[in-house]
């Protein structure tokens, strides 16, 4: 055992009653598995048949949907934006005026960038005020198929587009009063339909943004030299000129009279923390379960001046 901190787990153990029950079950379970080959084969055959039916159904359904969408687009002008850079590709995204009524946390293992890396990554650094939100529904079929484990229920992923008016520009070809659209990862509800803050994995700071929120954004220019090729077959610039990689270390958001930030900003570490109630949707395998809860946590905060001192350290 490595950590005394987790010694509470010593008290979490199986009851003697359970052990007796298991012993009894094992003794009563006298039929060895090899005596049940027909049942197993039948189950496997049933499952295989079912899977083949599903695959065939999805394939036919998808083709029908494609046909329908193309014709819909031609006749009516579409909500679905065809990919500009790769017209033959199936990859599409759809701009939504309302946030999706699901919480599809985009689960991804990522290692947060260091403070220096964030400043190198950012083509623009601004302090601005959020004026509006839109959402984008991205067909992530191609991405999902590259996962080791097929993840059919994450067929689409959702991101947020924040319209931001620049109050102060620190880096990049941006000026005060410019209005930018910045693609944020995951769903930011922006308090439009949901009263509570929604905690989303790897998106903690962005989740606090609302209409009129003020924040520092460290964003990439998707039309710049370092062109980002999405695995979905289109460029991010098709959706938005600017984007942040994640919702943690690329945003420092105003909260009350201070600014909340990701803990990787070492320069700000002397600043104090604030105590926050966050509404946490319980997710299993990326799916929102109907058993959400509120939890309390500490989020590090800094003052506007402390953040500006840090920015000046990197941006001359």
């Amino acid at each position: 055992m490595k950590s005394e901190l987790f010694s509470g787990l010593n008290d979490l153990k199986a009851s003697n009653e359970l052990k007796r029950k298991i012993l009894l079950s094992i003794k009563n379970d006298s039929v060895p598995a090899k005596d049940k080959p027909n049942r197993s084969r039948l189950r496997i055959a049933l499952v295989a048949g079912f899977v083949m039916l599903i695959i065939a159904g999805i394939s036919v359904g998808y083709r029908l949907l494609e046909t329908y969408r193309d014709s819909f687009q031609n006749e009516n002008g579409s909500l679905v934006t065809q990919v500009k850079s790769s017209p033959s590709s199936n990859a599409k995204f759809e701009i939504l005026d309302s946030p999706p009524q699901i919480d599809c946390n985009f689960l991804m293992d990522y290692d947060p960038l260091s403070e220096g890396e964030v400043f190198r990554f950012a083509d623009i650094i601004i302090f601005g005020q959020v004026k509006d939100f839109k959402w984008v529904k991205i067909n992530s079929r191609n991405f999902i198929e590259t996962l080791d484990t097929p993840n059919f229920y994450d067929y689409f992923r959702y991101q947020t587009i924040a319209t931001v008016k620049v109050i102060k520009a620190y880096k990049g070809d941006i000026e005060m009063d410019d209005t930018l659209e910045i693609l944020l990862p995951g769903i930011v509800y922006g308090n439009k339909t949901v009263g509570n803050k929604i905690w989303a994995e790897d998106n903690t700071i962005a989740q606090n943004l609302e209409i009129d929120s003020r924040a520092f954004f460290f964003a990439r220019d998707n039309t710049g030299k370092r062109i980002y090729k999405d695995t979905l077959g289109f460029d991010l610039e098709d959706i938005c000129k600017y984007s942040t990689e994640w919702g943690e270390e690329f945003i420092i958001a105003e909260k009350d009279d201070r600014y909340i930030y990701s803990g990787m900003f070492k320069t700000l570490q002397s600043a104090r923390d604030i105590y926050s109630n966050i509404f946490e949707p319980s997710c299993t395998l990326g799916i929102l379960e109907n058993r959400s809860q509120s939890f309390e946590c500490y989020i590090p905060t800094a003052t506007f001046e402390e953040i500006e001192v840090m920015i000046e350290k990197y941006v001359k």
Partner: protein
Amino acid sequence: MTYGLSHTDDFILAILDKYTDMVFRLAFMYLRNHSDAEDATQEIFLKLFRITPQFNNEDHIKAWLITVTSNYCKDILKSMWSKKVSLQHEMYLPIPDDNKREVIKQVMNLPQKYRDVIYLYYYEGYSSSEIAGLLSEKESTIRTRLKRGREKLKTKLKGVFYDEE
């Protein structure tokens, strides 16, 4: 040399005494309630004695139990989702010490992908490469999950958690 499993009461009891708590804890880490964790534990041991795999040593038995428990619980969670079965709202933790209970409560509130890794690393004492083998994940994935899990715990348990690495 391989270890075969005997079906004598003494042998079964010895195995149960040694590993039931571990299997139960790991199942609880995934399923977050007693009833489901107990059902899972029973299923795992039934499977163990039903298919009687050959083991190289006792560590091998433990590793087998961890891998099978992990896979079984993930299947259960998928099945719960597909059937839209809601897990219990209240998570009862029979830990008398308030501080210790709070720590475990915060661990249990982590997303599932961090809970199993944190448990195996900090409680069972496996290295990240061993956990990668047990859970069939890349070592870099496990390291990232450990790092992220630690960060989240540090936030939640400010002043209590410290990194021992």
